[in-house]
């Protein structure tokens, strides 16, 4: 169960090697989290992550989960929920793709969309139903500031996150009043292994900062969290910039 500050005792991470997810897990383990499920494609990185969290004192399990195989989601995730209540699901998988390459290769572009959007839709729905049956728990979804407005430099990734973002908003409304809580997290540019080597956008942030914001959001039972928080205002302004101008902004 969560405590009075929204801190979960059990955590399921979809995308178990995500830097943001692991930073979040570390933070939550320092508070109340005692059980962690890391879901992802089997890999050394996933095992390393599990070992790391175990070292912090959490009973950690890994499970094979592939966002690109929606047919398996029900069975794989169902097993986790059958083991006991999950107080928080963190949906953290996603790929950035390579915009220039993906524009030339529609198949790889489609894979970005399938991972970030289709895979998220099916796994989030499975988890949402389980949380609803439990009558409690948070589903935290990592969207992106890129979901807010299409940018020339990353619209394939951005559109997949936009789909996820809209989906999550609707899911939050659908679950309102069921005891389950849905929280959308919109970080700006995060310095992670996923973005290593890429030019930083303004308002760049870190996985730790996102983790802090997630913990705060849980305490407040927020529906949307921007990281950094100032992005909320920045994006509110940018949304109204005319396309012709926006196109030319160095974003």
């Amino acid at each position, binding site marked *: 169960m969560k*405590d009075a500050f929204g801190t979960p005792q059990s955590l399921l991470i979809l995308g178990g090697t995500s830097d943001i997810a692991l930073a979040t897990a570390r933070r939550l383990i320092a508070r109340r989290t005692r059980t962690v499920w890391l879901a992802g494609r089997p890999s050394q990185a996933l095992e390393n992550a599990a070992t790391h969290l175990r070292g912090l004192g959490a009973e950690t399990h890994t499970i094979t989960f592939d966002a690109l195989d929606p047919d398996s989601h029900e069975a794989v995730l169902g097993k986790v929920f059958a083991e006991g209540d999950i107080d928080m699901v963190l949906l953290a998988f996603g790929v950035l793709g390579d915009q220039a390459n993906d524009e030339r290769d529609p198949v790889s572009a489609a894979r970005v969309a399938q991972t970030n959007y289709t895979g998220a839709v099916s796994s989030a729905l499975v988890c949402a139903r389980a949380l609803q049956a439990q009558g409690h728990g948070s589903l935290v979804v990592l969207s992106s500031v890129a979901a807010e407005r299409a940018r020339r430099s990353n619209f394939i990734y951005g559109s997949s996150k936009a789909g996820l973002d809209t989906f999550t908003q609707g899911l939050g409304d659908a679950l309102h009043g069921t005891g389950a809580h849905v929280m959308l997290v919109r970080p700006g540019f995060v310095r992670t292994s996923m973005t290593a080597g890429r030019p930083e956008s303004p308002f760049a942030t870190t996985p730790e900062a996102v983790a802090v914001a997630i913990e705060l959001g849980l*305490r407040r039972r927020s529906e949307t969290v921007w990281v950094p928080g100032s992005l909320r205002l920045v994006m509110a302004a940018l949304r109204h910039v005319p396309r012709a101008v926006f196109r030319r902004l160095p974003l």
Partner: protein
Amino acid sequence: MPADAVPTSPAPPPAGPRRPASASAPASASVPSSAPVTVTGWGRTAPSAARLFRPRTYEEAAAAVRACGAHGARGGIARGLGRAYGDAAQNAGGAVLDMTGLDRVHAIDADGGTVLCDAGVSLHRLMEVLLPLGWFVPVTPGTRQVTVGGAIAADIHGKNHHVSGSFARHVLSLELLTADGGIRTVVPGTPLFDATAGGMGLTGVILTATVRLLPVETSWMSVDTERARDLDDLLARLTATDRYYRYSVAWIDLLARGAATGRAVLTRGDHAPLDALEALPRRNGQRPSPRTGAAASPGTPPSGSLWTPPSGSPWRASTRVRAGRSSFGEAFRFRRDMLASPLEFRTPSLPAAPSFVPDGLLGRTAMGLFNEFWYRRAPRARTDELQRLSTFFHPLDGVPHWNRIYGRSGFVQYQFVVGHGREEALRRIVDRISARRCPSFLAVLKRFGEGDPGWLSFPMPGWTLALDIPASLPGLGAFLDSLDEEVAAAGGRVYLAKDARLRPELLASMYPRLPEFRALRGELDPGGVFVSDLARRLGL
């Protein structure tokens, strides 16, 4: 109910629409409502959803319990008026049995001083019914809006714990609906009783209870007030003189720092005897006869309480009564009204708190000013002031929904006890709270008497401190965890009825009889029919 008990008044009609508002969702029919509703405790943290049953008969309650045990049903838990601060009366994804539909007062033995009632009856209702007959509930918490079932399940304590113990000590027997759907009569001195008293509803649903009452002559309190300038002064005063008062409590200003750390206002007293009212206009005159525990005036019930003032002690009986009125005419009218109906139970009511309040409204400044005002307002020393029962015991009940003022994040109440001889730990904790400037309204310090037999009962002989803190305060979780460490290291414990955040690892050391409790539960309820969010969170 003793066999010879004579019901002296017809059972009052069910409270019906007068049911006081609970923190929970609307009352539903006796059948499970089809859509789950969100439920929280009084602190409004950690909401979860459950199906609400509201049984109106014992049969309906038994049927509901059987349904809770059905395959895949996630169990059930009884709920009274939802005044537990944390998650004791919620059950995510399962059922919550709202017991306030079972609210009959079955019989009052006005000679022997006992009442047999349903567990869903509130203490408020009992006071309404009992006071005119010259009886009072044996133990009352800081609010009247709790049920008898909730009072037993949390084994609540009042300002009289140092002389009367906690609530379950005054329970002569109770009927418990157990996991198998059967009803057992449970009497003190048995393991099932000791598991149920303080057992947070996890042994079953309490259906009825027979409670021993306290005789009173009036519905007024005779109250002494004094200030303590710091914590040492406070502890010394309580230690030296607590035993002369039936009721005793100290309001501590935890925002005071430095030399004033722990400064407090002590309010202590007892039920005012009839002659205290009679003595009223003679504002400085002597009271006719000092109150002794027994037979204060002809025709009043004999003292059936567990406790009488120590004989030959400087028991602060009313020797002088002040009505708090200025002119003689006013004082006269006041006296006339009081004497016309000395047992009248009046409860003032203020407008409810608004339903939306932003987080953080009650910051340090506001609370600090309030505490300053409260401390200065109290007289340095005043004796034998007459106060209404509700003013003395339940000042917050006058403002419905006051728990909303803490905003959306809600608030936590931190209450712990450490034993006598552990004053150092208490002092450290008070220092740390003061140094951290937790925005808290007046916190409450009490000196507990003997411990109670309930396995998970909270009180133990020593000092208990309770304070409300907004949950939105940054870093509060970690801070309270570190206080828990101090408490546990001092052999103390935190109060489950108030808890919403204890680290499960600390539970066993705080409650040494937990293994027995778990074993009994395992035997009585192997299928885990009774379960709550509290039980899941702490692994009870």
